[in-house]
């Protein structure tokens, strides 16, 4: 079945009374951007609904792009037929035959918006269903629990037929909830946390800490690749690469091993907060998951969280690891995350990190490190900023040099 249009539905938007028009406008902007590579496709609003008129552009890649826009609850490929019984019957039959695997039960649901049409909805239900049944062996009608509901809408200008409902990502349109900084490590969790925050309408800037020579070029590239994956769901993401070697090595030399992780995490949170202030972000998003590692016990989270005044959002805090992994696979970050390059949270890890750090002790060590405040500011200032655009992984300077070769 070759779709003529795509019917788009937004989800939770309906819940948000006053903001609705702002949200709608934002989601429409995102859809328009997704359609940019397909100039003939047009976004039209009619009868209070949103349609993409394909005008010959291919359905599949556009559907894939719509599947990456937050705020859409679902969409359906729609076939148009003439508002004439024979044409509608033929189109309905074709639509049914195209469904793979072939359903065993179905029902027809006709909405007749054009009341002048000679048959009413009930008659049309019957006329179309009987035609389909005659031409498809083994198919039955089930009005209560059909495998496929074939929807037909009869309007003045034509009949619209669809059955497939593709689930969208849901959530809120990107940007409608403001901006936050994501602490992006390179592991499995933080990209998923970022994605979940994005789904709630947050626009992200990612912050990554690297520790040359203890971490490698590959570890950094891995984070860039992860950020590119997230950029597929935003139009672009800014990535701040913060040099952390100096702070990390000095903390290692001057503080007790079992508190090192706590001190490092606090320094990272503070640097992120500095970047947040500079870039006007209102929260910090992390991939913390209660109890997963020593720094994620409630006691550790308490001590680390107190380093910041900004709220720390932890979308994964109560999730199971298996569910996080499933999400990472769905988003497309899992395969990158499991590449075996050390990031700065895994180097210098003591055998027995404290799971119950004492806030006062930690603060005392920080006071003793009189250089720390200055070093944190220096690290924030020295952060390298990259703007990663959706689909831009192939357009980086390195990739550009490669493009010439390939």
């Amino acid at each position, binding site marked *: 079945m070759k779709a003529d249009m795509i019917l788009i539905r937004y989800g939770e938007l309906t819940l948000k009374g006053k903001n609705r028009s702002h949200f709608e406008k934002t989601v429409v902007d995102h859809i328009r951007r997704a359609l940019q590579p397909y100039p003939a496709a047009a976004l039209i609003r009619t009868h209070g609904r949103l349609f993409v008129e394909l005008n010959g552009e291919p359905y599949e890649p556009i559907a894939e792009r719509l599947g990456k826009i937050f705020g859409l609850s679902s969409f359906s490929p729609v076939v148009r037929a003439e508002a004439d019984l024979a044409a509608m019957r033929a189109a309905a039959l074709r639509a049914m035959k195209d469904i793979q695997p072939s359903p065993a039960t179905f029902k027809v649901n006709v909405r007749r918006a054009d009341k002048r049409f000679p048959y009413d909805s009930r008659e049309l239900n019957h006329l179309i269903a009987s035609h389909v049944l005659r031409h498809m062996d083994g198919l039955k009608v089930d009005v209560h629990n059909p495998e496929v509901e074939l929807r037909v809408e009869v309007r003045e200008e034509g009949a619209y037929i669809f059955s497939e409902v593709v689930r969208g990502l849901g959530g809120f349109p990107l940007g409608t909830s403001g901006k936050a900084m994501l602490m992006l490590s390179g592991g499995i969790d933080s990209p998923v946390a970022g994605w979940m925050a994005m789904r709630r309408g947050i626009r992200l800037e990612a912050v990554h800490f690297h520790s040359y020579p203890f971490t*490698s*070029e*590959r570890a950094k*590239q891995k984070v860039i690749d992860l950020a590119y994956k997230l950029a597929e769901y935003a139009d672009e993401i800014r990535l701040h690469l913060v040099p952390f070697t100096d702070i990390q090595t000095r903390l290692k030399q001057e503080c007790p091993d079992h508190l090192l992780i706590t001190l490092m995490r606090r320094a990272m949170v503070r640097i992120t907060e500095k970047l947040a202030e500079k870039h006007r972000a209102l929260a910090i998003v992390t991939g913390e998951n209660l109890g997963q590692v020593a720094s994620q016990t409630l006691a550790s989270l308490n001590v680390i969280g107190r380093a910041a005044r900004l709220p720390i959002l932890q979308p994964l805090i109560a999730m199971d690891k298996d569910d996080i992994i499933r999400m990472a696979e769905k988003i497309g970050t899992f395969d990158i995350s499991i590449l075996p390059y050390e990031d700065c949270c895994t180097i210098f890890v003591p055998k027995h990190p404290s799971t119950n750090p004492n806030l006062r002790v930690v603060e005392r060590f920080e006071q003793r490190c009189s250089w720390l405040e200055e070093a944190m500011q220096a690290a924030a200032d020295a952060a390298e900023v990259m703007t990663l655009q959706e689909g831009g992984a*192939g357009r980086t300077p390195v*990739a550009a040099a*490669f493009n010439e*070769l*390939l």
Partner: protein
Amino acid sequence: MLLYFDHAASTPPDPDVVESVSKTMQTYFGNPSALHRMGVEAERLLQQARHVVAQALQAEPQEIVFTSGGTESINLALKGAAMQYKSRGRHIVTTQIEHSAGLESCRQLEQLGFEVTYVSPDATGAVRAEDVIAAVRDDTILVSVMHVNNETGRIQPVEEIGRALRRRSGVLFHVDAVQSLGKIPVLPKSWGVDLMSVSAHKLNGPRGAGFLFCREGVQLFPLIAGGGQERGLRSGTESLPLIAGMAKAVRLAVERQPDQWKRWHEWREWIADTVASLPGLHLTGTRSADEMAPHIVHFTFPGMKAEVVIHALEEAGILISTQSACSSRAGRPSRVLKAMGMPDSFCRSGLRISLGREHTADDIRTLCDRLRNVVHQLKPLAAKGDPS
């Protein structure tokens, strides 16, 4: 000046390809597995090359295994799959007209206790999809069919076979696409192909490079063990210059395929008309555009040894070839033509003209003129008693 018409044997590398091989060789000599910056850069280039090749096939990067060429790819596909899945069964289905790489791999597998069914082609040089499917048994683990025959240019029904095999779980499908990629559309994933072999130098790429498409989920027993490169399927430091050159060649060939097809097809018609107009020559295959690769014209000259025609044409400044380059030195009658049921005098007189991207209409005119002259000169000398 010599005019080269043996592109099915090997093609001149595209100047852009030569440049990318040379630049890569000079710039990215780091070992992609090395930890330092140069290693990382080389690794990125390797990934990017894999991405480019995958895109040309509408496949995923992790489905591309770089090898040293078509022969290695075919060996890896056939023997690698047979060894990996031998506990499922020990029967393989292939055709009588495969390239020696496929045929000899099957012979080796027979020595190792596998059983192979060789499906025969019809008189036009194509196997029938039904015959291939009918040869599949409960213990069949692999079906291997070439896409375009390297000698006759006849297209094999791989899409149909792939579709039918989808319903037989546990049977892998290998396609030798060495002569088809860049010549006709090749879409392994939508055709249900599990393994597909390609060689770079057949599409204006460098010698010594090829790849195997290996659909996600298909496992192979590696033939070359070592440092675990290419997901462990093909160890050995990656030949990055050749791989980069191949990626470029594959991209260009696939991008230009539709336009190139039209040109080749027109010329093929022209040459085929010339052959058909010359008494004593017999065009091989069919005249249908759906059944013949656009870049190969094959014909026989019964009663005249193929070598004589080759040399006479060479004196006239035209280079063509007899059977496949890989078996022409043996001077034996063509096994492919034999399998098609041709008499011995035909099998000993097969001639192949194959076209390239750099050809012009003038070249084709020259070719046709000189072919006409040479055939007129030689015709009286042809052995009598041939069935023509």
